[in-house]
């Protein structure tokens, strides 16, 4: 209401400067277009590399493939990669299920509940979680967390063992998918929290006041105005987290006792394995054809990640009319 009108620039220099400004504009447009194109080129290059390197394995006959020690006896790449895809998805989905509610809770607390000083400190601590290298998470998960959670998993399998997910007896040490899920959840927590927090903070004050003026309590206001407004942002944040969980290698490798089955039992050892951890595990001793087979599994991971992201885009776009962006 009290903004001062900006003093208009003297006309003569403004006209003279137009050409240099125009050039700056063109350079900037070129740079940003270049950056946009670069990402596409990199993506295409990665896809090309994966296809090229995987090609020998993809076209190899069954007899050739069975020569690789860890390829199943039927010599089919599909039978090999199937359980790996399954294990990767189980790990990532489990991590997401554990992390998203916590992340939304922390983000809401920081954006709408905590006193200002506490909220910035808390935001900083959460961001710090992202700075820890994954190998440290792996060590911590295997050496500290696994023994710590073993009694909990034990209890889970004893009380909820009738659910296939919690089939017992829980393995000792707890080098199982459930432990991996917890560690991955901690690893993807910072990114989901940070993005959600920013989105929640951007809820228009007008919408918050609309809810409050209708007689909403703080929680009702959050549910009515803040969460629906941030919904698409939270989905995007979750997809960023999911992407990280899908590709996480070190932590899984160091914690999980691997196995190649389609098993949903989260508390049993030697049931699942993820693509990324499997590549890291087998790569050092693989023959050339073995490397090619491993890269073929990497191609599968690439496709999964792409599909997951497209699915998320579709979910967000489906209700674009109601997003508040218009």
């Amino acid at each position, binding site marked *: *209401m*009290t903004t001062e009108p900006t003093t208009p620039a003297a006309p003569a220099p403004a006209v003279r400067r137009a050409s240099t400004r125009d050039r700056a504009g063109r350079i900037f447009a070129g740079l940003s277009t270049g950056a946009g194109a670069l990402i596409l080129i990199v993506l295409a290059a990665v896809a090309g590399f994966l296809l090229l390197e995987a090609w020998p394995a993809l076209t190899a006959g069954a007899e050739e493939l069975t020569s690789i020690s860890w390829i199943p006896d039927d010599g089919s790449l599909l039978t090999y990669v199937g359980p790996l895809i399954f294990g990767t998805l189980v790990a990532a989905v489990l991590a997401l299920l554990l992390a998203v509610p916590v992340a939304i809770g922390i983000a809401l607390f920081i954006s709408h509940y905590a006193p200002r000083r506490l909220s910035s400190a808390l935001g900083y601590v959460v961001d710090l979680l992202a700075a820890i290298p994954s190998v440290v998470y792996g060590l911590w998960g295997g050496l500290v967390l696994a023994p710590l959670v073993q009694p909990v998993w034990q209890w889970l399998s004893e009380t909820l063992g009738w659910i296939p997910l919690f089939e017992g007896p829980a393995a000792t040490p707890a080098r199982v998918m459930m432990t991996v899920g917890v560690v991955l959840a901690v690893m993807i927590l910072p990114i989901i929290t940070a993005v959600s927090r920013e989105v929640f903070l951007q809820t*228009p004050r*007008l*919408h*918050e*006041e*609309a*809810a*409050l*003026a*209708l*007689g*909403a*309590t703080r929680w*009702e206001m959050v549910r*009515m*105005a803040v969460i*629906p*407004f941030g*919904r698409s942002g939270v989905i995007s944040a979750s997809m960023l987290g999911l992407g990280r969980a899908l590709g996480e290698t070190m932590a899984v490798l160091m914690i999980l006792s691997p196995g190649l089955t389609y098993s949903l039992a989260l508390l049993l050892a030697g049931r699942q394995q993820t693509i990324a951890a499997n590549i890291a595990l087998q790569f050092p001793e693989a023959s050339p054809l073995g490397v090619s087979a491993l890269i073929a599994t990497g191609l599968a991971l690439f496709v999964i990640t792409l599909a997951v992201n497209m699915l998320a885009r579709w979910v967000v776009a489906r*209700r674009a*009319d*109601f*997003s*508040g*962006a*218009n």
Partner: protein
Amino acid sequence: MAQRIDVKDLDVYYGSFRAVADVSMMIEPRSVTALIGPSGCGKSTFLRTLNRMHEVIPGARVEGTVTMDGVDLYGSDVDPVAVRRQIGMVFQRPNPFPTMSIAENVLAGVRLNNRRISKADAETLVEQSLQGANLWKEVKDRLDRPGSSLSGGQQQRLCIARAIAVKPQVLLMDEPASALDPISTLAIEDLIAELKNDYTIVIVTHNMQQAARVSDRTAFFNIAGTGEPGRLIEMDDTRTMFSTPSVQATEDYISGRFG
């Protein structure tokens, strides 16, 4: 359904800054009271104290009493949430919830008070409220479209429908037409004239003609200078205020000599 509001010796503070000083006024039921005055004179701040919305801003507080129906709205046992359910508010910029459809917007307040409303009741209420806000004819075929798909004037009437759907006693309007074109403004003014049959209405406006057209009583707020609190200068029947005000400042403001 309409209640008298009695304000006594009200001071409003933002932290240690006193924004509004010493306001006493009686707001009559089933009438329109207009609050006018130059920018920064505290009329919007005062309006927001009537339903305790100013408390949303950290550090804001009041001294004095606001009584409605014999209850001090600032009593220690009074929940601001309950106050806001009795005293609805319409804002300067239309603010329907963008993530909700037109019908959901109307029902938003009701869903807070009473989760279990039958489908038939909900449909009736949506129709009643939208008709009450003169919007039904325009939107009845697209109730499931987002509220943000409407024009600005329609959105503002949707907000009024949302406010009256919870059947409040009082309706506060903070410059409800200042962001709208003349046609939409007219629609809102006509609506205000109808709504005063059922509700006590308090409206803040910068538009003197609007105050003269829609209100029964007018209160003039003024500010002595920057950093000084806003004060209620005088309050009278609108006709008197616009013809023979008793304070010189009022006449100067109304005749456009300042502000």
